C-alpha cells in the first residue's frame, strides 16, 4: 500500500547528472558488496589477473546489454540477441574461411546484425506487434536460419589474423574490454548528448506525447533494435575471434543475462528509463559473481541458486539505496 505514495513521492531536487549518478550509485554499492564478499572468501580474487578476467568475461554480456538498454528505454525488449549473434557469427566465419578479406567479412556480419534488428524494429514499430512476442518469434527464426545455413555444424578454422583483431591486448587490457568500453562511451554519449537519446527516453516515457512533439517514433524504435542487432553482431565477432570458430548454437540464453544486467543497472522494463553506467555495472556484477563462485568451487546447482539470489539481492540493494525502480 505504500506503493502509490512512494510512487508519487518527489525525487531530490538535484541536477540531472547528480540524480543519475545517485541511481548508479545504488548499483555501484551492489557491486562493491559483491566484490567485498568474494574478496573476503576467495584468496586471489583481487589479483590483477583475475580482475582483468572478470572484465573480459563480462565484456560480451556488457556489449549486448548496452543494446538491450537502449531497446528497453524505448519501451521494448529484444529476446533475439543470441540468435542474431549466431547468424552474424556463422556468416562472417564462413566468409573468413572462404578467404574473403577481414573488413568485408566483418562488415557483412555487422550488416546482418543490423538487418535482424531492422526486422524486429519494423514488426514492432510499423506493424505494431508486441516487442516480447516479435523477438520471441525471431528468436526461433534467426536461430533456425543459422542452423540451416551451417547444417548445424560449427564453422572452424578462422584465420589467425582475424582472431588477432579481437584477441589482442592494449595497455595490459584485453582488446575486447577496450572495444566494449568504447561502445559504452558511445552509448553514453548517445543517451546523454544526442537527440536520438532524448527521443528514446521520450518514446519509452510517453509515446503519444512524443508523437505530438514530433518525435519520429517508428524510426527511433527501429534504430534501437538495429543498434541492439549491431551490438549482438559485434559481440559475435569478439566471441568468434576468441573461440576461433563460429557455431550456429552460439548465444544461447544471452538475452536473459543481458536483460538482467540492464535491469540491475536500473533500466525499467516499462520503458523511459535506463542508464549506460548502470548497465555496465550490472554486467560486471554478474561477471564477478560467476567468477567468484567458480573460484570458490561452488557446485553447479548451488551456483544456479546463487545466481538467482544474487540477481534478487542486487535488485534489493539497488531498491533500498535509490528508491523505487
Amino acid at each position, binding site marked *: *500500500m505504500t506503493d*502509490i*505514495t512512494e510512487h*508519487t*513521492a*518527489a*525525487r*531530490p*531536487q*538535484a*541536477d*540531472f547528472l547528480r*540524480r543519475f549518478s545517485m541511481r548508479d550509485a545504488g548499483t555501484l554499492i551492489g557491486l562493491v558488496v559483491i566484490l567485498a564478499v568474494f574478496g573476503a572468501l576467495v584468496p586471489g580474487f583481487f589479483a590483477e589477473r583475475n580482475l582483468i578476467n572478470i572484465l573480459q568475461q563480462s565484456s560480451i554480456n556488457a556489449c549486448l546489454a548496452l543494446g538491450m538498454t537502449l531497446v528497453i528505454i524505448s519501451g521494448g525488449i529484444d529476446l533475439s540477441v543470441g540468435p542474431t549473434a549466431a547468424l552474424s557469427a556463422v556468416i562472417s566465419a564462413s566468409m573468413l574461411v572462404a578467404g574473403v578479406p577481414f573488413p568485408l567479412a566483418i562488415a557483412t556480419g555487422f550488416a546482418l546484425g543490423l538487418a535482424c534488428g531492422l526486422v524486429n524494429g519494423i514488426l514492432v514499430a510499423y506493424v505494431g506487434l508486441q516487442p516480447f512476442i516479435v523477438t520471441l518469434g525471431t528468436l526461433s527464426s534467426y536461430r533456425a536460419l543459422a542452423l540451416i545455413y551451417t547444417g548445424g555444424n560449427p564453422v572452424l578454422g578462422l584465420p589467425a589474423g582475424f582472431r588477432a583483431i579481437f584477441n589482442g591486448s592494449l595497455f595490459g587490457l584485453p582488446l575486447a574490454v577496450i572495444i566494449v568500453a568504447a561502445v559504452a562511451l558511445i552509448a553514453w*554519449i548517445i543517451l546523454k*548528448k*544526442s*537527440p536520438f537519446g*532524448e*527521443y528514446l*527516453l*521520450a518514446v519509452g*516515457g*510517453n509515446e*503519444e*506525447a*512524443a*508523437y*505530438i*512533439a*514530433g*518525435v*519520429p517514433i517508428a524510426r527511433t524504435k527501429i534504430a534501437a533494435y538495429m543498434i541492439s542487432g549491431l551490438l549482438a553482431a559485434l559481440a559475435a565477432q569478439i566471441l568468434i575471434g576468441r573461440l576461433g570458430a563460429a557455431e550456429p548454437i552460439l548465444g544461447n540464453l544471452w538475452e536473459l543475462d543481458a536483460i538482467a544486467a540492464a535491469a540491475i543497472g536500473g533500466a525499467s522494463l516499462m520503458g*523511459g*528509463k535506463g542508464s549506460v553506467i548502470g548497465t555496465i555495472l550490472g554486467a560486471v556484477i554478474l561477471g564477478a559473481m560467476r567468477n567468484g563462485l567458480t573460484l570458490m568451487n561452488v557446485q553447479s546447482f548451488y551456483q544456479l541458486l546463487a545466481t538467482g539470489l544474487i540477481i534478487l539481492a542486487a535488485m534489493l540493494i539497488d531498491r533500498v539505496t535509490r528508491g523505487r525502480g
Partner: protein
Amino acid sequence: MSVPRLQFDGISKVFPAVRALNDVSFSVGAGEIHGLLGENGAGKSTLLRVLSGVYRPTVGSVLIDGQPVTLNNPVAARAAGVAMIHQELQQVPRLSVAQNMFLGHPITRGVFVASREQERRAAGALAALDSSIDPAAPLGSLKVAQRQIVEIARALLDSARIVAMDEPTSSLTPSEFERLAEVIAGLARDGVAVVYVSHKLDEVFGICQRATIMRDGVVVDSIDLAKVSEKAVVSMMVGRELAQEQHRSHASGDVRLKVRGLASAKKVRGVSFDLHRGEVLGIAGLVGSGRTELLRLLAGADRASAGTVEIGGKPIRLSTPRDAIAAGIGLVPEERKREGIVPLRSITSNMALASMGVFAPRGVIDHRGLKRVAAEKMKRVNLRPFLLDRPIRLFSGGNQQKAIIGRWLAAGTRILLFDEPTRGIDVGAKAEIYHLIEELAAEGHSVVVVSSELPEVIRLADRVLVMRDGAVAAELERASLSEQAIAAHAIPQSETQAGRARYA
C-alpha cells in the same frame, strides 16, 4: 458554534525538496460548501489528497466531527466518510462505467459482482448529471467531459459526510456545471461538508458560502464570500493586483495558413478558413463538435481524408506531426498528461523535445545552449518552482502547460494551436497565458485557440469560427462577438431550446 464537520489542524506536507503544505488549518461546517482557492501549485490538491488518504501529512491532523482520524490510505478515508473527486481522472478505461464507479467496493451477490445492480445504481447516480451515459459502456469509449461526470457521480454513490471536489468542472460546460451546482446544493441540505476547488471564480462565488485561499502551501485567509469582491480574492491568491487587460488585435492582412475543405474520416466535415499573421483565431462549439479533431488534423497528429492546407501560398502535406512542425505548426494538446508531457523527464527535456535539430545542430546536444534557452523560455512563461531539471510530473498542471508552450517557443513555431489552453489552470497563470498569447500574436505568430469557455474565446480572439457537427457553422468578426451570438450558431437548430440552456 457547534463542532465543525471537517477540520484541518496544522497540516504540513513536505516532499523531498518541496514544502507543499505548511501549517494549514481551517474548518468546514456540516452543510457548508467551502471553496478552496489558490494558484497552480498552491497546494490545494495536496491538501485534498491528504484528506482522502492518498498522502500522509508530515505533521498535523484531520478532525472529523471533532474526532482526530487516521487517514492512512484511501480505504480508511472512505471509511471515515470522505468521498473525493480527483483532479486527474482516476479511471480504468477498459472497465465499464459502472465497474469504475464501484471499483474497490463492488456490490457482490455471493462471490460474484452484481453487475446489473451496479449498473442500476450507477445509472441512478448519473441521472442527476447526464442521463445519456450508458453505465455498461467501457469507460474508454467516453469523452473527457463524460468521464469527468462519471468521476463526480462516483463520489455521490457513497453517502459521504465530506465530499472533496478537486476541479470537477475543468472539462464541463456551464450547463453541466448548473446541474452539478444543484447536486451540490442537495448534498449541503443533507448536511454534507463540501470542499470545492476550482479555478473558475464565478463558480466558487456562485455556490460557496465561504472560501479558504492558499498561496505557496500556506493559508492566506478563510473568508466569507458574501463580503469580498472577486478582484480582492484574486489579489489574495496571486499576492498582487492583476491588471484587467483588454483585447488588442495584432492581426495583419497576410494570410499565413489557408485551409480548404479539410475533412477527416471521423469528425471533421469540410472545414475552410484563413489564418493571418498576428491573428488569434478562436474556435468555439459544443463538446464533440470536432474542434479537437480539427486541431489534430492541422497538427499532423491525425490524417485528413480530404482537403488542402497551404502555408504562405504553398500546399503542404501533413501526414505526421513532424510535417506540421517543419511547417511551423505546433499543438498544445487538450489532454496534457496523455498527449503533452513525458512524465519522467525534466522540464528542460520536455521543452526541447520538438527542437532537437536546433539544439543539436551537429548531432550532439549543446547542453549549455539548451540550458540557456530553457532558462530564458521558462522565465518568459514564468515557471514555478523554477527548477528546470526536475521531472515534469512533479509540477502542477499549469506549470506543465507552461513548459509545453515553452516547447513551441523554443522550436520557433509560427502557428500555435491551443486546445483548451487554460483547462485546470488558475487565474494567475491564466492571465499569464492570455498575456503570452497576445504577445505571441504581437510578435507575428498566428494562434488558434479552441476553448469551451466563451469568455476566454471572446477575451482572446480577433475572429471566431463556430463549429457544429464537424463543420464551420459561422464565422464571427470581433465586432459581432458575444456569448449569445456564438451559442446561437453552436447549437443545432432543432435543439435550439435545449441547447441554449446547455450553453447559457
